[in-house]
Structures are given as C-alpha cells and as structure tokens.
C-alpha cells in the first residue's frame, strides 16, 4: 500500500523531529501534526530554567516559516479525541476526523499527581503554561517547597534559588535522585544545592498541604508560599488505551516503534521499547535527546522500512552552573569504576558483570566532563569491554580506548 497520508499526534521533541525527518527523506504526501497545546511547538528543557529565571520564551521547535515550507498541516490548540483504527482516522475534539495511512502517537508524558489533602494547591511543571504559572510564584523572598528530589525538582530548586526564593526539597526516599542517578553523584549534587542554601528533608512523607505550607507524617511543619511537585511522569496513553492498543508501562512497541496495530507507531515518552544494548524488556527513557532521536528514527519506519532505535540514551540536567550527564543505563551495571575529573565528584563508569560498559555518569562544569561522556557514549554503542584500570586512570585518554572498537 502506498503511504500518502501520515498523521502525528503530539508536537513535542518527538513529533516535530518526525515531521522534519519525513520531509527530509522525501515524503511528499499529506502530513498532519496535531498539537493540542496550541503554542508554537517549543523546546521543554528551558521550562525549568531560563523560562523561569529570565522570563525567556523557550526555543521554538518548528516555526511558522518551516511549517509553511514543509507543508505541514498543523492542527493547533485542538486535541485528538479518539483513534478509529477500523476507519484509520483520528477524531479531533471539535469534531472533524483526519484520515491516515500511518499514524504516529507522540503524546509524551504527564506529571504524576499527588493525592493527599490540599493536593489541589500543588503546581506541576510539564508545559509552557505550567512554567508561566510557576514563574509568578518565584518572587524574591518567597518560601517554595518542592516535593520530589528528582531532576525536575532539583532544576526548579536551582532556578528558585537564583530568583531569591527560600527553597526546601522534600523527598520520600532516603536520598535524592534515587531512580536514575548513582548515589555518589547524587551526594555531590545535594551538597551543591546545600551550598546554595537549599534545605532537604529526605525519607519524608507529606500528610497534608494548606495555604501556609505542608505537614509531614512525623508532624513537622514546613511553611511554604507555594508547593511544586516533581514526582515523576506517567506516559500519556489514554488515546492508545481507548483504541485498544497494547500497553506495557507505556504504549507497547517493538524496537522499531510498531504498536499492536500495523498502521500505528508510537515514539518518545509515551512508549516503552526494547533496546539492543539493554536486554529484551521494554524500557522508557524520558529524556530530551532520546525523544528527538526516536522521532527522527521512526520516520523511516513510517515510510515502510523498519529501523530499530539503537542510539545510546543520554541526558543532561543543568543545575546552577554545573551539569549532570549520564550516557547509557546505570541500572544495568554490576560494578562501578571511578575516574577523577578534577570536579567535586568522579566520573562513574558502570560495567556489566561481563565487563561491558553500559553507562557513564558525571556532575560538574560541562567543559570538564562533556568530552569524556561523549567518548563513553561511543564505547557503550560499540559494546566495548574497556579495562577498568584504563577507565580509572585520568592520565590515560579515553579516546585511545575507542581505537579498535567498531560501532555495532
């Protein structure tokens, strides 16, 4: 069947990357991009930083000139309401339907919500409207309570401190950044925040929230003018689920983004997929670059040539003037090798039981860590088994280890 009509739901990093890649690969059929949010498609990473601290507009992902030049039918401000798989069309919330030969679901994720007395007072950060609402509360001298010591919570903490707020981070687990970041780095990041005046309560559960602050289970009271929660995200699967597509901690897809319907694909934060470097179970990556990479990769699959996603996942988190970068998946490591970087914390290399490098992680000024993380990313992609003593010795350039590896 010839593919003449492609519909993409979601105009974030994944959906916009897919539109660009489709046109770049010569697709000249109808291309509709459904953006329920109604803003000019924009980059989310700025929302926790410059949009708050400098009242900046986020960088634009797809400007009007590109939309016109690439003949993209942007449906702006009208969410998709349903997918009709039998009729192969997407119904919009205001009634009309758009037919597709291939559909890409790139609906992203939504913040996990608190459920406790007073939860309706809590702010969350996912989209531009959220950031604008939070910005009005980050005034100098305001007391800000941040629920969740994850990446978003900590980026918010750094921005709020920069704006002169008093900041308290409340984390339910015994330490911050428990889900994605090795303990050694989490400790360095916490120390950096404490040095800037952020207070932390770990192993702390919130009992209730009111207009003056929040009460912990142990009866401690934390005064706050505003409460912002960053306690993770859940994949946005409502449309897919209602349409009967298989779900598995996200829309279930194979390595080339195919759902359980051969005309429908899903990519970005809304889906879970297996990755050649990390076993057979489906994973979710939740990072800006993976979202864009998968959007670019899925274009080939949409056009009929299944292309598995095989790029090494990588993310950054900028806090103050430093950056956390992790390439690969630390949770697949069996041991850690430390390499001094001249910054507050060493670079950590995570090796699987068989010695294969599966992740590298570091925190510090980008100029001190970025290059070696880049090189580690290539070693991970090549399934390299670097000698631990080479990794541990900062006098041995990592670049040398790349010789003799072949990108798999």
């Amino acid at each position: 069947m010839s593919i003449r009509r492609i519909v993409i739901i979601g105009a974030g990093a994944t959906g916009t990357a897919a539109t660009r890649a489709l046109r770049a690969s010569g697709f000249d059929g109808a291309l509709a991009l459904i953006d329920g949010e109604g803003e000019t498609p924009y980059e989310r990473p700025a929302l926790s930083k410059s949009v708050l601290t400098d009242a900046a507009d986020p960088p634009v992902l797809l400007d009007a000139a590109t939309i016109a030049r690439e003949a993209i039918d942007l449906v702006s401000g009208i969410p998709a309401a349903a997918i009709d798989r039998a009729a192969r069309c997407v119904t919009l919330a205001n009634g009309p339907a758009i037919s597709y030969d291939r559909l890409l679901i790139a609906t992203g994720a939504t913040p996990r919500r608190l459920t406790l007395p007073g939860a309706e007072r809590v702010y969350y950060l996912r989209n531009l409207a959220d950031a604008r609402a939070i910005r009005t509360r980050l005034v100098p001298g305001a007391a800000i309570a941040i629920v969740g010591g994850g990446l978003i919570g900590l980026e918010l903490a750094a921005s709020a401190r920069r704006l002169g707020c008093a900041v308290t981070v409340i984390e339910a687990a015994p330490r911050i950044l428990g889900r994605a970041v090795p303990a050694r780095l989490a400790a360095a990041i916490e120390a950096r925040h404490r040095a800037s005046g952020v207070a932390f309560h770990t192993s702390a559960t919130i009992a209730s929230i009111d207009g003056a602050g929040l009460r912990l289970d142990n009866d401690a009271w934390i005064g706050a003018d505003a409460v912002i929660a960053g306690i993770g995200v859940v994949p946005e699967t409502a449309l897919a689920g209602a349409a009967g597509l298989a779900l598995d901690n996200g829309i279930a897809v194979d390595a080339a983004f195919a759902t359980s319907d051969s005309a429908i694909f899903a990519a970005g934060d809304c889906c879970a997929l297996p990755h050649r470097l990390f076993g057979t179970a489906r994973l979710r990556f939740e990072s800006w670059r993976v979202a864009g990479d998968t959007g670019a990769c899925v274009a080939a699959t949409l056009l009929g040539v299944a292309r598995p996603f095989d790029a090494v996942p990588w993310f950054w988190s900028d806090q103050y003037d430093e950056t956390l970068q992790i390439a690969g998946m630390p949770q697949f490591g069996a041991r850690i090798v430390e390499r001094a970087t001249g910054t507050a914390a060493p670079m950590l290399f995570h090796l699987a039981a068989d010695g294969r490098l599966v992740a590298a992680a570091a925190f510090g000024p980008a100029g001190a860590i970025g290059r070696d993380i880049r090189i580690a990313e290539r070693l991970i992609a090549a399934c390299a088994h670097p000698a631990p003593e080479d990794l541990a010795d900062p006098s041995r350039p990592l670049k040398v280890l790349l010789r003799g590896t072949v990108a798999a």
Partner: protein
Amino acid sequence: MISKENDTMTQWIDVCAADALEPDDVIRFDHEGQTFAVYRTSDDAYCATDGLCTHEQVHLADGYLEGRIIECPKHNGRFDIMTGAAKGAPACIDLATYPVKVADERVLIGLG
C-alpha cells in the same frame, strides 16, 4: 569565492606551534576579547570557528571532535568545523569560520 588568503585586510595572528595541535584535536584560542576554536583534523587539515556554541555559549574546544564534527560538551549541539554549519539540535545557528594556515611551523588564524 574570494580567497581570504589574498585579502589584504586579513591579519594573520599566531595561534600556537604546529605540533602543539595533534591530529584530530581542537584548542581554544583567545584574541582581543574574542574566543575561537582551532582544529586539526585526522587528515591534517587545519580550520577555525567561533569558540562558543551558538546554543548556550559553552567553549567548543572542550567538546569532542569526530571527523569534521565538533560536539558541544554541554548539550551535544553539533557543528561542521569546515563550514560552521549547525548539524544537530539543540544547535540551530551556524558558527562563523576563519581561515587557518601553517607557516614556519606555526599555526596562524586569519582575522579582520
């Protein structure tokens, strides 16, 4: 294209000794308040670009050079070092490029 080499307005500024820059390497060079990145490729071509990433003003000389592509150490923005062209999000603004020549075992950058 007008060859910069013959442009009498070009001033050739000394950067470093030719052997201070290894093949497949990049260094930072500051001159009169401006910062540059000067490259030597694996096949021994020399070139130069603006020193700061056009995305968030990070020194590209701290980045990773692979072939003709320099990757910013902060957010992975990529540029073609020969043309200055931005090659990957989040970088979308090109870098300016500058002529480079080697004379008497010295690397020179053409400015002005």
